[in-house]
């Protein structure tokens, strides 16, 4: 049965989202869940900044500060940035390549629920004896000594959500390779699709080392292993290597989609073809490849020796070259363009100087000899917040404003959007620029307080004030979302009027089947080409016919729930007799659901031609 345009009760809506396999609804789930974790991580950031506002502050205790600091980093990377990136990918990529859905809709849903339950599990640690407290990197020498169950929550929670990410990455690889519309060659793919493709390849290769590291850590902490304990013949450095072999590509997993989002925005609002498209593709692939050759630059002070440090330093600096290519291409895209300063475009323009600052401090950190001075100081904190907030968060905010009409059918208010932008932009630089100097003056990172009279007072106070600006910007954004949802007007296919790629050729939000007829792609910026030839819609590549759709399923939810239950069981198996049985029951739930998935023949359903025609007439597609 088609679910087009039908009024439903609250219960039915919730059931619909629990069982959905539609990439557009999964995008909304990712956006909501990632958004909530983003607010949670932001709250933790505010606690950190309030504690550090004045010297010798006792707003929170030292132990609690460690937990808040760890959870801020872990939440922001794994539970906010990653799912929000996946929200953008799910919302846009299938439509951008002219597909009706991703290759494996069931797995798409499974990926989301695994991430969601992993994230919830990790955050339940707050109520069950204490959160992880060894930093988001959770170095083994520190985390093995942590007395609470916090690290166990970290290990099992990230294992579950990492599985979801890996599944999501593979799904997008297969989708982009196999599901492109006729005529959509690799070199005609929109830049965001290219970024998603390379990102998914990075996920495929980067997450297995994390999985291995987490399994080792789980063995050490819960099952009497000794991979990392030197006293028992282990090696504590192995964790650091495994973590950073994953961790460095992870940075590019976050920032490449950000580059993709900005590439779309620059081209759209400069009303020009992206400058140097092929060099952009080349640079994206090269950054992805080099991302695997540089992990040891996080470990210069571990004592790898001068040869290793020198080689990894030079490899790291090489990444500045493709990144520079991208920066110049964006500038040249704007050059001579007819620029419109919409909210997404303002983020994009602000991103360039912000990200370049982060890039330059990156090269400074890459200089191994100098890094001995910067290491573990606020200079590093300033650096990675410049790349992650100035790059990824700006991109996610820009992408949310840009694609909001495509996801929800209503435009976010532009005035409030600009207020958010200015508050966030000013707050961001206020918070983090001064931290470069705090670091150079010698303030170490990850400390819960500092002493008066060492020259850190003013800088920290400025930083805290900046954090409140960012919080205010976020609140305005939330208000904007509420106002838009209640009062906003429905918009047509191409609300920005300058859309270039396929997603702007379908209704907002796109119908369940995306395209009534699979489009024929005749070049880069396929929709722009049609518009320039005076056509209203896309050139179809097939006659109108019945559309085959996958059935919704609750099984992804059940499979993930089983692992969630199992994780609780195994976490407490040394403290309580019920631990091991609960763990086994959880695994049985997961395996049982997988068994049902295997034996039940599910052929999906068809939306009939007449229904499609009726839906299209009702003001869906053009």
């Amino acid at each position, binding site marked *: 049965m088609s679910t087009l345009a039908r009024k439903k009760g609250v219960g039915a809506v919730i059931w619909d989202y629990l069982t959905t396999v539609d990439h557009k609804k999964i995008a909304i789930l990712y956006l909501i869940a990632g958004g909530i974790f983003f607010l949670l991580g932001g709250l933790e950031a505010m606690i950190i900044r309030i504690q550090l506002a004045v010297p010798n502050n006792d707003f929170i205790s030292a132990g609690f500060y460690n937990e808040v600091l760890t959870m801020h980093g872990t939440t922001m990377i794994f539970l906010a940035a990653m799912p929000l990136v996946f929200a953008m990918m799910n919302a846009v990529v299938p439509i951008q390549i002219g597909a009706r859905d991703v290759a494996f809709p069931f797995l798409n849903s499974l990926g989301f629920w695994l991430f969601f339950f992993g994230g919830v599990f990790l955050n339940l640690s707050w109520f069950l004896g204490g959160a992880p407290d060894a930093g988001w990197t959770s170095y083994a020498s520190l985390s093995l000594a942590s007395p609470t169950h916090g690290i166990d929550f970290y290990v099992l929670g990230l294992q579950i959500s990492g599985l979801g990410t890996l599944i999501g990455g593979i799904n997008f690889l297969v989708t982009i*390779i196999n599901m492109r*519309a006729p005529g959509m060659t690799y070199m005609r793919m929109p830049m965001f699709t290219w970024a998603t493709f390379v990102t998914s*390849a990075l996920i*495929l*290769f980067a997450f297995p080392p994390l999985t291995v590291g987490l399994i080792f850590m789980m063995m050490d902490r819960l099952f009497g292993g000794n991979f990392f304990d030197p006293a028992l013949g282990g090696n504590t450095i*192995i964790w650091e290597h495994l973590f950073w072999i994953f961790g460095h590509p992870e940075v590019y997993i976050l920032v490449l989609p950000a580059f993709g989002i900005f590439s779309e925005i620059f081209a759209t609002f400069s009303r020009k073809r992206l400058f140097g498209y092929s060099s952009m593709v080349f640079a994206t692939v090269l950054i992805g490849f080099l991302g*695997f050759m540089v992990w040891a630059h996080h470990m210069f002070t571990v004592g*790898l*020796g001068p*040869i290793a440090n020198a080689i990894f330093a030079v490899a790291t600096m090489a990444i500045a070259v493709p990144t520079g290519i991208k920066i110049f291409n964006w500038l040249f895209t704007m050059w001579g363009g007819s620029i419109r300063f919409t909210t997404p475009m303002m983020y994009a323009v602000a991103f360039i100087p912000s990200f370049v600052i982060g890039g330059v401090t990156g090269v400074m950190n890459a200089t191994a000899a100098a890094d001995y001075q910067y290491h573990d100081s606020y200079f590093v904190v300033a650096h990675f917040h410049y790349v992650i907030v100035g790059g990824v968060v700006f991109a996610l905010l820009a992408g949310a404003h840009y694609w909001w009409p495509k996801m929800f059918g209503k435009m976010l208010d532009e005035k409030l959007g600009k207020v958010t932008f200015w508050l966030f932009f000013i707050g961001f630089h206020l918070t983090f620029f001064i931290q470069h100097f705090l670091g150079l003056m010698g303030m170490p990172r990850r400390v819960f307080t500092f002493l008066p009279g060492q020259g850190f007072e003013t800088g920290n106070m400025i930083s805290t004030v900046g954090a409140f600006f960012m919080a205010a910007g976020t609140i305005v954004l939330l208000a904007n979302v509420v106002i838009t949802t209640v009062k906003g007007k429905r918009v047509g296919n191409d609300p920005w009027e300058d859309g270039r790629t396929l997603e702007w050729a379908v209704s907002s939000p796109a119908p369940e089947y995306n395209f009534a007829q699979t489009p024929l792609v005749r070049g880069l910026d396929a929709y722009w080409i049609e518009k320039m030839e005076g056509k209203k819609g896309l050139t179809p590549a097939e006659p109108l016919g019945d559309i085959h759709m996958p059935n919704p399923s609750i099984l992804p939810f059940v499979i993930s729930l089983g692992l969630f239950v199992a994780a609780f069981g195994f976490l407490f198996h040394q403290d309580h007799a019920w631990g091991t049985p609960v763990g086994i029951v959880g695994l049985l739930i997961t395996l049982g659901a997988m068994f049902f998935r295997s034996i039940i023949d599910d052929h999906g359903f068809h939306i009939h031609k007449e229904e499609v025609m009726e839906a299209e007439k009702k003001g869906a597609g053009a």
Partner: protein
Amino acid sequence: MANHTHVQNPKVDVQYRRKKNAEEMKHQIISFTLMIFLTLIAFFAVGYEGFSAWFAVPFILLLAVVQVIFQLYYFMHMSHKGHELPALFLYGGVVVAFVTVWAFLTIVWI
């Protein structure tokens, strides 16, 4: 897209496909026999007192590589057309893994 590439009448090329399948079966049986043979050699190399570990270990690793190639090309159909991208990703993964291990063995000394 997949549902647009159906062959109109599946009976048309049944002869050709049968011949092709028979040929493929032959290849699979040959490589399967070879793989069993290589496994026997590996067992022998380890069991035979005359070979030191310095010979036996690299030797069975070499045999393992040969078996992986047989597995990929004859049993997982990488020799067929349309497998360029899986091959690219496989070799990409091999390169990344090799460079990582190589870095550990030469400059990092974990």
